[in-house]
C-alpha cells in the first residue's frame, strides 16, 4: 500500500479500476459456466456414444436370448432376470430395515452415547467404497453363512450397501413432518408408536419412497461388490431359487467390455442402453413422486 508522508492512504489506493475488475468478473462467470457446460457436454457425449454403438443391437431377441459365445446371438436374458430378482430382494430386505432404523433414530432414540455412535457410524458407512462391502459379503455371507455365490448372498450384500442411503433419506422425510402432527396424535390418546404408525409415517411415506427408489437405482447399477462375492460373469440360465448363481446387467456389460471382439462391445453398448433406460425410469418415478408429494401435502 502506498502511503503519504503522514501515513495516511493516498488517492491512488482508491483507484477503483472498476472496468477491469468487472471484466475479470465477467470472465470468471464465463469460466464457471464453462465448467458446468463441460459436465453436461460429457454426459451428452457419453449417451450419444453409447446409443450410436449399441442402438442397432437392440431387439426383442437381444432381450430374451441368453449370452452366447457368438456375439450375434448373445442376449441379456439372464442378466435382466437377475437384475429384477436382485431389485426385488434388496427392496424386501433394505426397505423395512432402513425405515425401521430411521424411525428409531428420528422418533424414539434417546440422546445417548450409543445413539451418537449409531449416527456417526451410518454417515461413515455411506462413504465406504462399495468394493469393501463386496469383501464383507464374501467373508460373511458367502463363507461364514455358506450361502455361496448365490442370489441371496448378492442381495444381502447390496442391501447393506444401500441401507445408509435409505436411512438418511427416511430420516429426512420423517424430520420434515412437523411436530404438531405428533402432538395432535398424542393428544387424541394414541401411543407414541400409534402416532408414528398412523400419522407420521403416512405423511413421510412419499419422501421415504423417493429415497428408497434412488437407493434401489444405485443397487442395480453396482458391479464391484457383486464381482467380489464371486457372481459369475457367464450365466446362461435364470436362477430358480435364492441359492442359485446369478448375473446382473452391469456384470454382463463388464464381461462383454472385457472381450477383445468389437461385436461384443456393441452388445455391451446395447446392454448399457437398457440399463440406463431402467435407471431413467427409476429416476423419473422418484421425481414424479416428489412432485406429487410437494403438491399434496403442505404443512
Amino acid at each position, binding site marked *: 500500500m502506498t502511503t503519504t508522508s503522514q501515513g495516511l492512504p493516498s488517492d491512488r489506493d482508491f483507484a477503483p479500476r472498476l472496468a477491469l*475488475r468487472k471484466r475479470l468478473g465477467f470472465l470468471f462467470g464465463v469460466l464457471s459456466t464453462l465448467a458446468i457446460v463441460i459436465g453436461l457436454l460429457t454426459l451428452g457425449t457419453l449417451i450419444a456414444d453409447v446409443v450410436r454403438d449399441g442402438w442397432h443391437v437392440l431387439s426383442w431377441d437381444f432381450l430374451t436370448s441368453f449370452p452366447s459365445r457368438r456375439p450375434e446371438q448373445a442376449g441379456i436374458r439372464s442378466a435382466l432376470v437377475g437384475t429384477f430378482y436382485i431389485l426385488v430382494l434388496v427392496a424386501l430386505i433394505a426397505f423395512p430395515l432402513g425405515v425401521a432404523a430411521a424411525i428409531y433414530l428420528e422418533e424414539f432414540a434417546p440422546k445417548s452415547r450409543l445413539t451418537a*455412535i449409531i449416527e456417526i457410524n451410518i454417515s461413515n*458407512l455411506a*462413504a465406504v467404497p462399495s468394493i469393501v*462391502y463386496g469383501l*464383507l459379503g464374501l467373508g460373511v455371507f458367502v463363507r461364514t453363512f455358506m450361502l455361496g455365490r448365490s442370489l441371496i448372498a448378492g442381495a444381502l450384500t447390496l442391501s447393506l450397501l444401500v441401507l445408509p442411503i435409505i436411512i438418511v433419506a427416511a430420516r429426512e422425510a420423517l424430520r420434515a413432518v412437523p411436530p404438531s402432527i405428533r402432538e395432535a396424535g398424542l393428544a387424541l390418546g394414541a401411543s407414541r408408536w400409534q402416532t408414528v404408525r398412523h400419522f407420521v409415517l403416512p405423511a413421510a411415506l412419499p419422501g421415504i419412497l423417493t429415497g428408497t427408489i434412488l437407493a434401489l437405482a444405485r443397487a442395480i447399477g453396482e*458391479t464391484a461388490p457383486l464381482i467380489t462375492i464371486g457372481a459369475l460373469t457367464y450365466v446362461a440360465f435364470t436362477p430358480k431359487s435364492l441359492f442359485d448363481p446369478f448375473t446382473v446387467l452391469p456384470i454382463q456389460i463388464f464381461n462383454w467390455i472385457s472381450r477383445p471382439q468389437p461385436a461384443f462391445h456393441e452388445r455391451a453398448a446395447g446392454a448399457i442402453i437398457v440399463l440406463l433406460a431402467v435407471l431413467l425410469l427409476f429416476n423419473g418415478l422418484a421425481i414424479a413422486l416428489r412432485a406429487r408429494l410437494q403438491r399434496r401435502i403442505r404443512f
Partner: protein
Amino acid sequence: MTTEPMPAVEAPSIDRRAWVERILTGRQRVDRVRQVRESAILGLLFLAALVSVATTIGIVYTLALETFHFFQHVSIVDFLTDTQWTPLFTEKHYGIWPLLTATIVVSTIAMLVALPLGLLAAIGLSEYASPRLAATVKPILEILAGVPTVVYGYFALLFVTPLLQRFIPQLEVFNALSAGLVMGIMILPLVASLSEDAMRAVPQSLREGAYALGATKLEVVWRVVVPSSLSGIVAAFILAVSRAVGETMIVAIAMGQVPRFTLNPLVAMETMTAYIVQVSLGDTPHGTIEYQTIFAVGTTLFVITMVLNLLSYRFLKRFREVYE
C-alpha cells in the same frame, strides 16, 4: 365421594356396576397389551438401527481376520516397502507400492479435473446462476453421479482412449489418463453439490457487506464467500479423494491389470480396487494366500478411505459450528 347415593339418582344396578368395572379392567388390559406390544416394536426398531453398527463390525472383523492370516505368511515390512506386487506369479512379491502408486496417479488426475471444475460449477450455480436456472441444471448435473461406473468404464476405454490416442500416439490401450479424466467427470457433481451447499450456508449479510464496500461480484466470491465456506469446500474435496481412491469399475476396465511401479499415466497400471476385481474374477480357493491378499489390499483401502472420511467429517463439523 359419598357412599350414600343421592336420593334423586337411582342407585346403579348390579349389572351396570359390573359393566363399568368390565370396561375399566378391559381398558387396563388394553393398556397393558399396548405397552407390551410397544416395547416389542421399539426393540425391533432398535435392532434395525443396530444393523448398521453390525455392518461396521462385520467389515472390520472380516478384513482383520484374513489380513491377520496374510501377515502370518508375509512380513508387514515387505508389504510396506517392497516395490513389486506379484502374488499371482511363481516368484511372489507382496509389496503394496505398485497398487498404491497406481491408485495415487489415477486419483490425482481425477482430482485435477473434479476439484477445479467442481468448485467453478458450484460457484456458478450458487453465485452466478438465477435460482431457476440452478434448479434446472443441478439435477441434470447430478445424473452424472447416478450413471453406473461400469458405463464410465466403457466410455473411458472405447471413447476417451481412442480419442486421446489421436493426440498422444504412445498412449497404451489401457492407461491411467483416460480412467482418471473420466473419473474426474464422474466425481464433479459430488464436489459441486457439496461445495454449493457450503457456499449457500454463508450468510447473505456477509455478501451484502462486501458489496457495500464496493467489491465486485468476483471479489465477493473469492474474498468473502469462498474463504467463509472453506471448511465445507475442503470437506467436499477430501470426500472426493476418498471416492476416487475407492472407485473400482472405471479403473478395472480402462486401466489394465499390470501392477507396475510407475508414475507414468500413459501406460497400464493396476489400482488396489482393480486387483481385488482381478482376483475375484478368477476362481481363487478360500484359505490360499491369493485369497488373503485381496483382504490385505482391502484393509489398506478401507483404512485410507476411513481416515479421509473422518477428516472430511471433522472439517464439515467445524464448518457447521460456525454458521448453523
